Structure formats: C-alpha cells, structure tokens
C-alpha cells in the first residue's frame, strides 16, 4: 500500500465520544487525503492537506477536523461521533509532480479503517 498505514484498522465506539484516526506515510509525499466510503455513495472527500499545517475541506467535512503537524502524519478527528459517521475511512497520499492537477489525481490509498459508532 505504497508506504501508508492507518490506525486503528477497526474501531467500535459509542455516540458522543471523540475518535481520532491516524494516517502515517513513509513516502514523504506532499499531499494527504481522508475519504469515507459508504454503500451507494462511493468515495467522498472529507479533508485534504497540501502541506504541513495546510489543509482544506472536502465535500463532507462537517463533524470532522484534521491536523498535520509533520509531513508523515495526517490525523482525522471526530469530535463527537454519531451513528451517521459509521463508515470505512481511507487515507490517501500523492506526490508533488509540478502540476497540482496531476498530483491531486495520482493518489495511493491506505488499507482503510472500519469505524462503527453505536
């Protein structure tokens, strides 16, 4: 999986609790992304990062926050988990290629985290 690890791989939590998912890369890639994947919705972007401390929102960012304090780690936090956030979460990375358009498209995905909120 292109030097990407996600932790935990599985998590069950209760509504209202905070949850943090970690994405770690060993590729030194500039761009990092968090997606969620749900049946019938495909992949939807939550947040992405274009550098250390530089992040932007995706289409489903409500209820999620992110942080990137160093190149290799991108954290996704659910401040107060809800049942609608039960999903499979994927982290992805992409290298800087001189064209941000090309960089954004050439993503390499981690193995995913299955989160269940009861």
């Amino acid at each position: 999986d292109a030097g990407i690890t996600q932790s935990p791989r599985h998590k069950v939590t209760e509504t209202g609790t905070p949850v943090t998912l970690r994405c770690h890369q060993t590729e030194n890639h500039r761009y990092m992304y968090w997606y969620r994947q749900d049946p019938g919705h495909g992949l939807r972007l939550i947040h992405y990062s274009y550098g250390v401390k530089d992040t932007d929102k995706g289409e489903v960012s409500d209820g999620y926050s992110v942080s990137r304090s160093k190149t290799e780690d991108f954290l996704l936090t659910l401040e107060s988990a809800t049942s609608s956030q039960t999903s499979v979460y994927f982290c992805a990375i992409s290298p800087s290629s001189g064209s941000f358009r090309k960089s954004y498209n050439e993503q390499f995905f981690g193995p995913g985290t299955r989160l269940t909120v009861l």
Partner: protein
Amino acid sequence: LAKTTQPISMDSYEGQEVNITCSHNNIATNDYITWYQQFPSQGPRFIIQGYKTKVTNEVASLFIPADRKSSTLSLPRVSLSDTAVYYCLVVSFNKFYFGSGTKLNVKP
C-alpha cells in the same frame, strides 16, 4: 459542476476487451481524469490517468475525446482477477469528483 457518472455494473468474459465510460461535463482544459480499481476490503489502486487523447500503460488504456465530456477506460483481454469495482476521478477547480463506481464481473 464536473459531476462524474458511470454505469453501475458490467459483465464480461475472460479474454474480452472491456470498455468502461465515465461522463464528466464542464471540466477545465487541463483537468486530469484518473481511474482506480478496488477489490473488496482494500483501498482503491491507481490504474491510469490522462487529460487528452490517449494514454496507455502496461495494464490499461485511457481514451479522452476532443470534447472531454467523457473518458473511457479500456482493459484488454480481461481475466477473472480483473473482477473489481472501477472508479473514475476528476479533480476540477479543487473539487474532487469520484464516480460511484462500476462493478465489473468477469466470467469464465
């Protein structure tokens, strides 16, 4: 909006060529189109990307007509191991548009 639309599913037989089309209106001239493959319980895997005419690599070809309103992923001589879900992605004006995926079922 560059919403991406794909067929939900396709069937094929081993050895055939498979073409999967993604529709994407209103993309900018230099926006790339990318295709990914996903097996159950795994993350998507990058297959191919391009932004005009034709791109070919060792596993697939990508055809983009002049009007760029659609693109076609071509898989030559598919095998059973190509059974998977295929997604197109267009990133336009810093918005990420993943298609909902095409489930390809390759039969013996």
